[in-house]
């Protein structure tokens, strides 16, 4: 053995010594060995969590709500539901029907032709699971095997207001305290209502619009989703238009923060939910829509957004129940 190879062995030994201070991947919180302790919950995921694919690509998960094939998922991830297939249990169902959507919660109801499915068992008596409660959701998956991903309830249940607050979605210039529209944002409520360039903004729900600050003050009184009556002057004539106030981030896109840059694949829509519970499972944007279970396999809610690299939001079980009932009754 020459000097060089001795040095190599020493280096190797040093490497091994420091490796002994490192926990093998399998034993880490979401490692395979730890996951086996959750096997009974995994069985529930296998039957009651749906995998939604477009082509071969997983785009979302779903939550089985009825034995005859109603499935809830995240609306903004599936779009118009074209070219989808859904796996429940080990069986694939091509071309699910998009029955209806709930824009407030960003939830879509899908239907597959199935019988005897096992719907999730919603836990309705526990409005807010305490922080530290184990939660289990669908993680990596193959056609025949769901894998658990585990975490805990991480924060208070709460409303997540729309990021940025309500906007009309128009740009304007101020001429003698009068606001003249110069541009209408494509995705705004103003565009839908037919506001056009050169319209003069006069009244908002009957209140006089006085300058830029005056308008901001008036709008500040409303919430995203409210409808206002906007009185405008166009070519010398007064007109009243019904305008929906949309969220600033929905109209103009979201401002990317330093935390966002650390967050990776967070959901396109992650604000504007009436109530969520929060946990620390690191979900991808494409692993949203499945059930969140406790150690008993009972359903605490449905994942609705990966908010940041370590915050995931879920719709609480009782809210999920009323959303499902509303959407399913619309279907019948």
């Amino acid at each position, binding site marked *: 053995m020459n000097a060089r190879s001795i040095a190599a062995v020493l280096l190797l030994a040093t490497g091994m010594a*420091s490796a002994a*201070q*490192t*926990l093998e991947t399998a*034993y*880490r*919180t*979401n*490692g395979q*060995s*730890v996951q*086996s*302790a*959750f096997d*009974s919950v995994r069985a529930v995921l296998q039957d009651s969590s749906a995998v939604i694919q477009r082509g071969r690509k997983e785009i979302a998960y779903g939550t089985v709500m009825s034995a005859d094939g109603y499935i809830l998922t995240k609306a903004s991830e599936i779009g118009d539901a074209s070219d989808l297939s859904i796996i429940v249990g080990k069986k694939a169902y091509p071309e699910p029907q998009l029955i209806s959507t709930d824009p407030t919660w960003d939830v879509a109801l899908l239907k597959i032709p199935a019988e005897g499915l096992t719907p999730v068992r919603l836990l309705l008596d526990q409005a807010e699971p*305490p*922080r*530290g*409660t*184990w939660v289990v959701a669908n993680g990596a998956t193959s056609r025949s095997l769901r894998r658990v991903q585990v*975490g*805990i309830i*991480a*924060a*208070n249940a*709460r*409303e997540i207001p729309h990021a940025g607050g309500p906007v009309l979605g128009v740009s304007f210039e101020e001429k003698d305290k009068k606001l003249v529209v110069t541009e209408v944002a494509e995705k705004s409520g103003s565009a839908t209502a037919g506001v056009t360039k050169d319209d003069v903004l006069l009244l908002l729900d009957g209140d006089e619009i006085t300058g830029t600050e005056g308008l901001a003050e008036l709008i500040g009184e409303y919430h995203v989703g409210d409808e206002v009556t906007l009185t405008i002057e166009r070519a010398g004539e007064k007109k009243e238009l019904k305008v929906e106030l949309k969220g600033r981030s929905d109209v103009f896109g979201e401002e990317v*923060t*330093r*935390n966002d840059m*650390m*967050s*990776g694949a967070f959901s396109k829509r992650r604000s504007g939910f009436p109530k969520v519970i*929060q946990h*620390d499972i*690191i979900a991808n944007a494409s692993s949203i829509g499945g059930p969140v279970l406790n*150690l008993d396999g009972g359903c605490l809610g449905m994942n609705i957004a990966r908010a*940041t*690299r*370590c*915050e995931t939001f879920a719709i609480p079980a009782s809210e999920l129940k009323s959303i499902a009932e509303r959407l399913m009754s619309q279907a019948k």
Partner: protein
Amino acid sequence: MDFPSGLLFGALTGLLLLSPSRADAARPYINDKKVPENRHDLEVIQKHVTDSLPAARKATVCIDLGDGSGSGVVVSADGLILTAAHVTGGVGKEFTVIFEDGRKAKAESMGLISTTDAAMARITEPGTWPYVEIDREDSAHLGDWVYSLGHSGGFDKERGVNVRLGRLVQVKDSTVQSDCSLIGGDSGGPLFDLNGKLIGIHSRVGQRTQENMHVPVREFLKNWDAMQKSEFVGEGPFAKKPEKGKGFLGIGTLPRAEGGLSIDKVGRESPAEKAGLKSGDIVLKMDGVELKTKEQFQDLLKEKAPDDRVALELLRDGKTETLTLRLGER
């Protein structure tokens, strides 16, 4: 002097009962299993977290720096805080801390270890504050179950403190790594063992969400006295050493025959203006030293760094008063 031993014992027992977490809590068996094997093991972890969490949450603060925020944790009833050096950024900085219930208090940074990202601070208002115990025995091992708290992204009363679960996945002398995920704003926040004892302070994150670095509490304990004395220890990436001569006051002065210096200019938004110095005030002394010439005053100031405090004795409207202010950065 002799104390009746029973009384002393009684007083000690009282103290133990008052402490927020059980000082003698045993090491949970679950930490010595390679992995939790069944439902019961998982419930044991859950119970430890939910039981010790209320006290841990109460003592965890958001450190509001104005243009950003981090986290910290109170470790004594009179308001000693442990946090990260890259959160306080330096010695003697003033900021506000916010408890989870929304209660605010003024605080000031003390010493820091720039090499390992450890820092100390204290609440400067009188009061009795909720606090947690430190794991002084350094008893955490590789693989132990832990949880992290932090005011991610800034204070949010509706949300409260974020809590995340994980294990210690790497242990080195001056760093421990866990798979509790962290994000901006968590920096400086506490890492707890299952008994709710403080074992580390969040320092930095890796590219992957499972790579999260903490300063172990032994690093704090090792440098406790230096940090108490507000020393800046070590050369490292986590805080900038204050530079002498870069301290900024923001006044122009003229010599005065009777002694002292007469202020003829006060810079806009300067520390002097913020402290209320006005043109026409006479500065008689700085830190107790009588001022005779402009040059002598400038030499005294050159010994000061940004954030250093100076005491100025003023003659204003025929009366003397002393004003203490903090220098800005030139």
